[in-house]
């Protein structure tokens, strides 16, 4: 019993020391505050809505009231004011990327429409601009055909089947990009900051030579590692909670669908895994710059392939399989489910369990590596 109390008290003391160290490190504090406030805000705002000021040009070879009507149908914010160009200018304009879309209205278009010959408008899309190509061409098609329809309606009526498709967006009815961008960066920052903080805490001890001091004291490596894990995890948990309530919900006005405590429980579980990873990486790297390079090569893939930036199910199958081993994949899954879709524990039980499993494995791995290498650090 005494031994247990002694272990616990050592772990608490060592953690409190970490907190003091962090408190007196203004650079790190500024970084944490910046990432969880300004950076979350700017990543929510920086990503334009899916279709925003798409560059469009029109080659009008008809010069009819209908073609002018079509040209007038495009205006900001979805599109830029259409530029009127000639057929010859089209290729160069698309080659240099001046226009993403060029509509070509053929000669005698209006006459053919009215004659029921169903002429075709040509739409050229720069398909290297994936983000706009698809949704943009859909919109353009709708707008052009809508204008033609309206124009024609004055002349004759049409018939169609009475089956209507009622499309409804759940969870984010207006498809506000800011909620998605902001919240997903927020989730990424939780991973990044926890790994950075824990890793840097260990490397700093090594660079300052204080690890040597710890090792000659009556404390065990497990206690040293746990001291860092709980203290740095707590800091990130706190920052995450504040950012959730004040930044995401407050400033960005994002409705948190699910239970905040449940989400924070998920964060805590995730932090257990990431702080262990931070320790692991810090035992591999010898200096801060090396640690930085390592973090880039490991965290970037973990975050980009976790499903936080683009749909997970659209990635190649082997990537999906490998990424099942990464904690971020499951964390992103549960974060999206709880934050956007209001899932309860019954729905996200699986990612919780997997995350716990990955966390314990990572912790065990890091601990064994930490014990093995700590002697060489002094």
């Amino acid at each position: 019993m005494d031994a247990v109390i002694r272990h616990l008290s050592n772990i608490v003391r060592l953690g409190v020391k970490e907190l003091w160290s962090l408190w007196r490190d203004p650079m790190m504090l500024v970084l944490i505050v910046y990432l969880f406030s300004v950076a979350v805000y700017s990543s929510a705002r920086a990503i334009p809505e899916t279709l925003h000021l798409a560059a469009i040009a029109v080659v009008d070879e008809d010069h009819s009231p209908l073609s002018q009507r079509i040209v007038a149908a495009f205006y900001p914010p979805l599109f830029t004011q259409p530029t009127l160009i000639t057929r010859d200018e089209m290729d160069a304009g698309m080659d240099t990327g001046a226009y993403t879309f060029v509509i070509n209205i053929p000669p005698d278009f209006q006459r053919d429409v009215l004659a029921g010959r169903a002429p075709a408008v040509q739409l050229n899309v720069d398909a290297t601009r994936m983000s706009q190509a698809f949704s943009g061409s859909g919109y353009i098609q709708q707008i052009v055909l809508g204008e033609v329809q309206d124009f024609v309606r004055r002349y004759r009526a049409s018939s169609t089947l009475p089956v209507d498709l009622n499309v409804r967006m759940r969870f984010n009815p207006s498809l506000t990009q800011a909620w998605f961008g902001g919240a997903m960066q927020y989730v990424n920052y939780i991973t990044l900051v926890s790994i950075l903080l824990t890793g840097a805490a260990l490397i700093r001890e090594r660079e300052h030579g204080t690890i040597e001091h710890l090792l000659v004291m009556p404390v065990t490596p497990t206690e040293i590692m746990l001291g860092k894990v709980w203290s740095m995890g707590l800091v990130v948990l706190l920052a995450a909670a504040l950012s959730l309530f004040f930044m995401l919900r407050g400033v960005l006005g994002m409705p948190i669908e699910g239970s905040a405590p449940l989400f924070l429980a998920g964060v805590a579980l995730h932090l257990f895994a990431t702080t262990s990873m931070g320790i692991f990486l810090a035992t591999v790297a010898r200096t801060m710059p090396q640690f930085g390079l390592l973090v880039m090569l490991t965290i970037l893939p973990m975050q980009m392939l976790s499903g936080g930036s683009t749909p997970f199910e659209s990635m190649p199958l082997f990537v999906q399989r490998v990424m099942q081993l990464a904690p971020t994949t499951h964390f992103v899954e549960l974060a999206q489910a709880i934050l956007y879709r209001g899932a309860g524990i019954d729905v996200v039980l699986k990612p919780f369990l997997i995350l716990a499993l990955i966390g314990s494995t990572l912790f065990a791995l890091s601990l064994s590596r930490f014990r093995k290498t700590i002697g060489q650090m002094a």
Partner: protein
Amino acid sequence: MTPSEPVVRLRDVRQQYGTTQALAGVTLEVPAGCMVGLIGPDGVGKSSLLSLIAGARAVQAGSVRVLGGDMASKAHRDAVCPRIAYMPQGLGKNLYPTLSVEENLQFFARLFGHGGAERRRRIDELTRSTGLHAFLQRPAGKLSGGMKQKLGLCCALIHDPDLLILDEPTTGVDPLARAQFWDLIERIRRQRPGMSVMVATAYMDEAQRFHWLVAMDEGQVLATGAPQELLARTGCDSLEEAFIALMPEEKKRGHQAVVIPPLQVDDADVAIEAQGLTMRFGDFTAVDHVNFRIRRGEIFGFLGSNGCGKTTTMKMLTGLLPASEGRASLFGKAVDPNDIDTRRRVGYMSQAFSLYGELTVRQNLLLHAQLFHVPADQRAARVQAMVERFDLQNELDALPESLPLGVRQRLSLAVAMVHQPELLILDEPTSGVDPIARDRFWQLLVDLSRRDRVTIFISTHFMNEAARCDRMSMMHAGRVLDSDRPAALIAKRGAATLEEAFIGYLVEAAGDAPTADEAPVIETRATPAPAAIGHRAPFSLQRLFSYLWRETLELQRDPVRAAMALLGSLVLMFVIGYGITLDVENLKYAVLDRDHSEASQNYALNLAGSRYFSERPAIKDEADLDRRMRSGELSLAIEIPSGFGRDMLRGRAVQISAWIDGAMPQRAETIRGYVGGLHQKWLAQQLAERGMSVPQTASVETRYRYNPDVKSLPAMVPAVIALLLLMLPAMLTALAVVREKELGSIINLYVTPVTRLEFLLGKQLPYVGLAMVNFLLMCAASITIFDVPITGSFWALALATLVYAIVATGIGLVASSMTRSQSAAMFIALVVTMVPAVQFSGLLHPVTSLEGAGRLIGDIFPSTYMLIISRGVFSKALGLRELGSALVPLLLAVPVVMGTALALLKKQEA
């Protein structure tokens, strides 16, 4: 210049770093043609003074005249720089550890403009005369301390300087190597009598051999004169005492000579015992069968040079390092790293000052008391007792970093003593402290030993400290040469001083190994070398090449950076190529069919046929739909109402509901498009089956150009190449420059004839080359693995990449000039490249869609244009003619970026 004229003339020189006054008005005239010593402890301004004289540091206030001209004038610095040689403080600080002896010398010789044959001749002569000739191929980092200093000297002498400036050249070097070093300098001076030598040293005994001394303290000159003169003036026997006598009154107050009461110990009561203790790292034996016995209450000293195994031995005793062989015991118990209880009986003070800089003095003491489990009710009293004993009352709430070195050392000792250990292990506790603080520290040790019967095991490289120990071991190259009372050791060798005795042991240990130092020093010195002395070409390809060649060698020998440079881009290319996929495929959907009619099944089948969707088991009911959408399992749910088929046939309006998960707006948008399209298709089919025709007014014929399948990879891969060719080269270049700042070799930029442009280009070009290699690798990966072919002109792309690589590495150079630490340089390089490149250059969202500041950044940032070129060549089958308009902004960026880097780089330290 006549010999009688002073070589250096200083008038009221002041130097300030932040709040620290390094030099507080120094006025000095240094005679030419002799050996001048600067004495005083660390941090009194010796190094600042020497770096000012060498021209490495910019003069802040006062006048510094060296070799007949003003060092504040750039023209004069350029003119005399080839006549001055400067060896900065720190063992081999201006050397490159991964480069061999030969490569280091070649590097310096090239900088001073010697031709190939001349370089060979000089290198051979210098290394023969210093005994380094046999080690030409050995990396500088693997040389012993003494050999490093000799190499540093060779590098300094490669260009026949008239003024040789040595900053603490012998600190931490064993006495034999030290003696040899001074003999070498003496012989060189005999060959070149006109040469002036200025030396800073912390060893007072060493200063005895100089012709003229400058004693310094707190940025001021205390006294100048020949050693004998100073001794006579103060009436002291040794320079150390003389120095103390010269120090200002208020500092001396309370100082008294250390008095050591006689030792009374019980021979059987052994605190530490080591038998055959050995430590091997790979094939290197750091500690070789060391034996000693230390009795309780004794002060036992370990004397030896840096790297002789003192620290390793101490680490084995504390359990920090497991011994490879032999055994050590503390208080009769074998040292066991897992034995927590023995640790409480030991206090340890490591070589580097290693307390928590972020904790106050009080917090440091308290933390250690807690971790050593001092009972809670005694902690406050114990901390208080330590504070009183070690005189820390006034510093209780200060942060250790703000304290003077002497106080920090007392704090370290207090921390090591807070749990009242019976044994203290101190690893070089007094290096860098002034003699008064050192005496005070020793008095505390003596009290601990004699009053509290604490056993003290201390290592040092100061002879006079070792002489104060009860018993001591002399250590060299991992072996203990002898152990005894200091007086007995002196007597055994029949020497006059401990130093002489130590040298005697060292010579004996070396056996009759020939010391090459006996070879005559360079004889050709009489004929002036054809080297370009006195005038300097404004731009020299040879100097540029010298830096380029060295950078390339270093990069080759640094596995982490090299791996990052070569493989980093490929790894990241795969990750981002697959990660930022904008394809929306395999969307999981399910149908809630409440109708179960032929029509409803037909509708569902219509969806299942699409390649964009993959069907999941049917939805059972409302609750099932809700749960599966919440968990993210379904991105789309289709609900077909009951009576759908019947109503449709009767022509009654029916409504199918599509629920889309809007959490990912981009994906939701795409799903909406797909579903709408499929619905229209189905309607048209139904109408056709009924023999009705779709009323057509007009159609839109969509041509997806450049990427007909609208796949993500062809759109992303060219963009990723442009992104990575910016980020990684910028970061690596920034690291390369800041690394020199951190390690100290940047000094070679300050004191050799190399110009800033040569330096920058030399550092930059290897990374431009690497970027081109990366470019080829990524192109190959793109074509073979990602199946994204190059449809346009490869050569146009290669040309643009070359320009772009120069800009990217240039951005790295700019980033490096703003920071001092590698971590910060990496961070800044990452931020200034990644953020604009990812968000504002058209990677995901075209620049034309941006507004405000984002648009402005997008318009001027080079990545925007590289993206246009890369996509143009990869996807749009374009060549140089069509892309010329995008290449121009890239070309314009080159002078802007390089000019900025050049303007920000300083040829002197601030």
